[in-house]
């Protein structure tokens, strides 16, 4: 097993056998869940080593989801910003409209392999919930999705999609009724239904082995990007940019490049009303402190008594007070630079992309795009920049209309 001392030579060796990325990660769960998490880890390690498992996943990715997703040269945006050559990795073109399906196809295959007959999940923006409901329908498994009552209100189209797909959507009213509370309730469901239930966590968070497993399933993004960029430009990209909610789309793009030291990597958090506004943002690394929540140690939005704050972002998918533990470790090692952009900047980028490229981005990657707007003009024109266009904005048009005071 890899230990963290290897990190001196590689940034891709984690986690250690206990699921730790340096200080971060781990398995901080109730004893009731512990045997299950150990089971899951064994099952995942076996599956990973089984060529048939990977072949089946590759086939689903290709024929069901539509992979590989294109690497698209955003010509007009590049011209407009006047700097780096900007590419979009177009995971918004996947079936269901975001990168979330990459992980769900992997986990549902594992659930079936383990003989589990019931699927549960948490969702924020509803993109993960839709992806889970989709794979549950595809494989004929009953499925319940926990979603904060606040999020149900701001992501109605996705709620309807989940219901159409046959999922039961359970509104969560505890706490602030957003993603963290949905995750609490999903964990509570799991504890009470351990015998038959598989919990499909939607991001690189939660107890070990989830952060590593979700990362592995999402790494298809970065692996494809490597190959596509080699084909297009004959070399690796210079700069990677992705938005960070829990961090799964970002980790999927970043991980295959972590040991290519010449590649500059930026993770963009949700700065909400501004990093200086108390409890007014969802930037756990830029504006939080290490703590323990949802099974792992990571940077968290919290007060000085260790109580978790609710945070705020215009984007339901980024509105989470934590972040995957591997990102926390990459932040502390300095390998990845984490920054934040505000709601307002994201909304501007959303409009810019729509007008210039004819692509309506989700509000989540609009955050990545907002940072590209600042970064690209400072880079030379031979700098190859890849931004992860991890979701499409159909789900967000109602919310955006409201923010821009536009009539629908």
């Amino acid at each position, binding site marked *: 097993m890899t230990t963290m001392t290897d990190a001196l030579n590689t940034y891709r060796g984690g986690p250690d056998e206990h699921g730790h990325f340096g200080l971060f990660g781990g*398995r901080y769960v*109730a004893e009731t869940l512990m*045997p299950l998490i150990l089971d899951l880890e064994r099952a995942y390690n076996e599956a990973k080593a089984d060529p048939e498992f990977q072949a089946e996943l590759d086939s689903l990715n290709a024929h069901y989801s539509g992979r590989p997703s294109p690497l698209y040269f955003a010509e007009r945006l590049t011209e407009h910003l006047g700097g780096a050559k900007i590419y979009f990795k177009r995971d918004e073109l996947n079936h269901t409209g975001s990168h979330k399906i990459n992980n769900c196809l992997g986990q549902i295959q594992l659930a079936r392999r383990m003989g589990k007959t019931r699927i549960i999940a948490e969702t924020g923006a509803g993109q993960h919930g839709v992806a889970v409901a989709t794979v549950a329908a595809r494989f004929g498994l009953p499925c319940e999705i926990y979603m904060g009552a606040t999020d149900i209100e701001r992501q109605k189209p996705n709620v309807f999609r989940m219901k159409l797909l046959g999922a039961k959507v359970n509104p969560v009213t*505890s706490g602030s009724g957003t993603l*963290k509370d949905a995750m609490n309730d999903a964990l509570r469901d799991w*504890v009470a239904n351990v015998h038959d239930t598989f919990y499909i966590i939607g991001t690189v968070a939660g107890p070990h082995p989830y952060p590593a497993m979700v990362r592995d399933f999402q790494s298809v993004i970065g692996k494809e990007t490597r190959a596509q960029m080699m084909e297009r430009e004959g070399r690796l990209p210079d700069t990677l940019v992705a938005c960070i909610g829990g961090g799964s789309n970002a980790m999927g793009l970043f991980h295959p490049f972590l040991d290519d030291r010449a590649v500059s990597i930026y993770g963009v958090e949700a700065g909400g009303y501004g990093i200086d506004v108390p409890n007014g943002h969802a930037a756990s690394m830029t504006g939080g402190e290490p703590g*323990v929540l949802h099974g792992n140690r990571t940077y968290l939005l919290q007060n000085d*008594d260790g109580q978790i704050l609710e945070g705020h972002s215009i984007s339901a998918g980024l509105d989470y007070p934590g972040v995957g533990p591997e990102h926390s470790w990459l932040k502390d090692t300095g390998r990845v630079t984490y920054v934040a952009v505000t709601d307002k900047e994201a909304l501007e980028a959303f409009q810019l992309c729509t007008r210039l490229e004819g692509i309506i981005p989700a509000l989540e990657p609009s955050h990545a795009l907002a940072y590209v707007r600042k970064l690209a003009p400072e880079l030379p024109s031979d700098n190859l920049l890849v931004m992860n266009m991890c979701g499409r904005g159909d789900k967000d048009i109602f919310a955006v209309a409201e923010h821009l005071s536009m009539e629908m």
Partner: protein
Amino acid sequence: MTRIDQTFARLKAEGRGGLVTFITAGDPDYETSLSMLKGLPAAGADIVELGMPFSDPMADGPAIQASSLRALKAGQNMKKTLSMVREFRKENQATPIVLMGYYNPIYVYGVDRFVTDASEAGADGLIIVDMPPEEDEELRPAAAGKGLNFIRLATPTTDARRLPAVLANTSGFVYYVSIAGITGTAAPDISSVGAHVARIKAHTDLPIAIGFGVKTPEQVRELAALAEGVVVGSALVASIAETLDENGQATAETKPKLLGLVEYLSEALHQLAEPRRSRAAAA
């Protein structure tokens, strides 16, 4: 011998199981909570579990979630929780206090500072719900160093492979979680609890307290026949909730209702204060 050890020795001599009561520190407010805490031993609590409120109590059902949020809303924090322990200890030297909660507030307070302050305040043990044996190295030895018992949870899913690891380094007592689920929801199934508890007893001489889902005197009586203690939590904090006014404030009913319920439940244990065959056999 810690206060917890002494308590179980006394219960054994009396030939009865102990009542372990859970309330959340600061629910519904500091003063009322402290006053109720002080009243618990006379009402029949043999051991007091004091919840350290947390914003995200993942292993708890609606009753304890609400109680935790009430306390936080009323301004409870770790300092105040420890000060409640200190105030209680000024008047009571006999009844053990076990602090129960989640790791993050302790981590943020600082592990060394926490075990020092908790021990000086007069706490006797810790139950940290989200710290399985795999992760407790960063707290358990520090707690032991200050004479605090570290009480681990065994659950219906703790299989034979894990049980020895769970029991190793547990001290004070073993908390058997009687259902696979969250607090205050399903009622425990007595026969399956009996089988699990017997399995644990084969591996340890420590006393066992059974909790999660216990509400009635009948359950208390039945479970006490299987182990050394019975934990009641959700039922107690729910009784607090019932007495609050429309603004969530304590009323004249709050304390008497809680303590009345504790008395009522504890009578179930005193009624059967005669040596029982199952206990004698186990011991």
